[in-house]
């Protein structure tokens, strides 16, 4: 059982997803506990895998017993076992919160929603677990296709936003596939470790160079890195609340993980530093993404859209950390994958609670929200402090590593962008708090303050995951030293 854990992490949601429509056809109410069961099992397996990796080192799992260069291989090392736990547990939390949200927003599509939900989680987990380039493409498309369908059932303009996302996402996936094709032409292999071994001899080849660029551009579209981000705000704003809480934190983080794998595992680090100056370009794009993201966030009056732009800025942090190409920077980037996944989940869960209780995601709807929904807004305050980077929360520590890495790389402009974005995040946060706490900035003619001061909190099924996320943000901050010394120092590519 234990040695099958790496594959079970992925298999559980997949098998359960196949059964979900049948179960829903028989009894609709069973879907929700079924999904929780699937994701709990998957989370348990991912934790077992992490323990196994920490105890006995890297796991190589051969699917169907085929030897690596021919068969598909799952390679679980410190980096992806850590991210597997993160993805599995966050999707479990979002699944718990989704009950009332789905019943409210898509009452007649509950069964299909949960089927696609599980398929999407399968895609995320598969991307993280696999050690095979083409297998990664298949999982990327499973995750994306499930995501398109989940987003399309959202609010008014969701279908058109989804269409744009679909076209962009398909271009991204095709570029990735093309990159894999070029690498296969050059090396004759699809296994990441095998490719990594063959490649150094042919680094001067133009085919390899084009493959590298195609792979990175494809992944950059999927993660919405700055010039390729245009699909993200619309798609995630109009998506149903439960969907945006699942897709927004995970799709982007998983793509950043793939980028780290391509730059530092499939290719040797010196390729992107010396032969093709990709890290330099990524560094600049990250700076622009951060500044653009926070400045656009400042302009928004729709909180979900504001969170989307914050997400674009946060992607800049991680890509910037990857682009620094030193141990501290990459440690910061990986730590920020975890912290940011927690923070963005928190933000979109709050947005879900606000939509559920106050009926919309315009910022004015948040008036007096602190009095009506004290627990949700307290959780929001924790997330906000973490976004600004106030010490006990986890946001501070990943920023600290990123800044240390930037100092080591003498990339001063990145430090300026980080500090400036923290300042603007503070403005954003206090702008929301001002409205939600003091009830200012609303139009006076809207005099419907009926029972505005009584507590009318979001349902428990949303509050519990939200509380867990808020707690996790603080705990991840307090124990970040332990996380870095226990897991991440082995997760950073060794030859940096």
């Amino acid at each position, binding site marked *: 059982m234990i040695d099958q854990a790496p594959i079970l992490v992925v298999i559980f949601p997949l098998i359960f997803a196949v059964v979900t429509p049948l179960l829903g056809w028989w009894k609709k109410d069973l879907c929700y506990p079924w999904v929780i069961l699937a994701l709990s099992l998957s989370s348990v397996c991912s934790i077992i895998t992490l323990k196994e990796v920490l105890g006995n080192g890297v796991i190589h799992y051969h699917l169907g017993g085929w030897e690596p260069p021919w068969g598909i291989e799952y390679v679980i090392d410190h980096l992806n076992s850590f991210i597997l736990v993160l993805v599995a547990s966050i999707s479990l939390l979002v699944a718990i919160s989704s009950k009332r949200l789905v019943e409210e927003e898509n009452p007649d599509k509950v069964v299909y929603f949960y089927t696609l939900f599980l398929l999407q989680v399968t895609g995320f987990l598969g991307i993280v677990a696999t050690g095979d380039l*083409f297998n990664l493409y*298949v999982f990327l498309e499973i995750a994306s*296709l499930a995501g398109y*369908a989940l987003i399309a059932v959202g609010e008014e303009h969701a279908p058109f936003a989804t269409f744009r996302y679909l*076209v962009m996402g398909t*271009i991204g996936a*095709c570029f990735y596939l*093309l990159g894999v094709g070029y690498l*296969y032409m050059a090396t004759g292999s699809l296994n990441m470790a095998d490719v990594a071994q063959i490649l150094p001899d042919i680094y001067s080849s133009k085919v390899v160079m084009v493959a590298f660029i195609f792979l990175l551009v494809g992944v950059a579209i999927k993660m919405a890195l700055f010039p390729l981000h245009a699909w993200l705000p619309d798609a995630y704003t109009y998506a149903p609340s439960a969907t945006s809480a699942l897709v927004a934190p995970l799709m982007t983080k998983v793509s950043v993980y793939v980028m780290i794998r391509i730059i530092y595992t499939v290719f040797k680090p010196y390729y992107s530093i010396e032969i093709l100056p990709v890290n330099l370009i990524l560094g600049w794009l990250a700076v622009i993404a951060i500044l653009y993201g926070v400045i656009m966030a400042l302009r928004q009056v729709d909180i979900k859209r504001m969170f989307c732009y914050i997400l674009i800025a946060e992607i800049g942090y991680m890509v910037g950390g990857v682009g620094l190409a030193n141990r501290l920077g990459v440690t910061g980037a990986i730590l920020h994958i975890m912290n940011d996944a927690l923070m963005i989940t928190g933000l979109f869960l709050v947005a879900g609670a606000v939509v559920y209780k106050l009926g919309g995601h315009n910022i004015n709807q948040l008036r007096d929200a602190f009095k009506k929904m004290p627990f949700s807004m307290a959780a929001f305050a924790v997330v906000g402090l973490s976004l600004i980077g106030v010490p006990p929360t986890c946001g501070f520590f990943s920023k600290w590593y990123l800044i240390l890495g930037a100092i080591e790389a003498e990339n001063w402009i990145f430090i300026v962008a980080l500090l400036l974005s923290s300042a603007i995040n503070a403005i954003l946060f206090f702008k929301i708090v001002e409205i939600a706490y003091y009830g200012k900035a609303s139009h006076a003619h809207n005099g419907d303050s009926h029972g505005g001061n009584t507590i009318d909190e979001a349902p428990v099924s949303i509050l519990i995951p939200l509380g867990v996320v808020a707690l996790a943000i603080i705990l991840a901050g307090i124990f970040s030293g332990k996380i870095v010394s226990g897991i991440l120092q082995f997760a950073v590519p060794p030859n940096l």
Partner: protein
Amino acid sequence: MFDFIVGKYNYWIHIILMMIGFYAMMSKRNLIKKIIGMNIFQTAIIIFFISIAAKRGATLPILEHAHDGGEHAIEAISYINPLPHVLMLTAIVVMVATLGVALAVVILVYRKYDTLEEAEILKKIK
């Protein structure tokens, strides 16, 4: 120069097809035309993969009587490479699924805006 164009004609076809698809996706204003462009784009990649599997004078990778006379060595040079074919079977499935989702989304768009012209939809959103 002649060799560069004619000798590598499979890559040229792949690039031209891909660019046609890309152009349609970027600049056509009708959503269905965008989807058709998307399909051409994906097909181009499939053609690329299939063409790199081909070898001159090679045959299909099916071994005759492999189960009883499996002792003799297999000459890889006389069989075309089956692996890209298998990969593309998966890619075709992905492509069909993408097409299905895209058409479903387009139906939703049409129900909402009563048109599939991007400019008119944008006007209605504003």
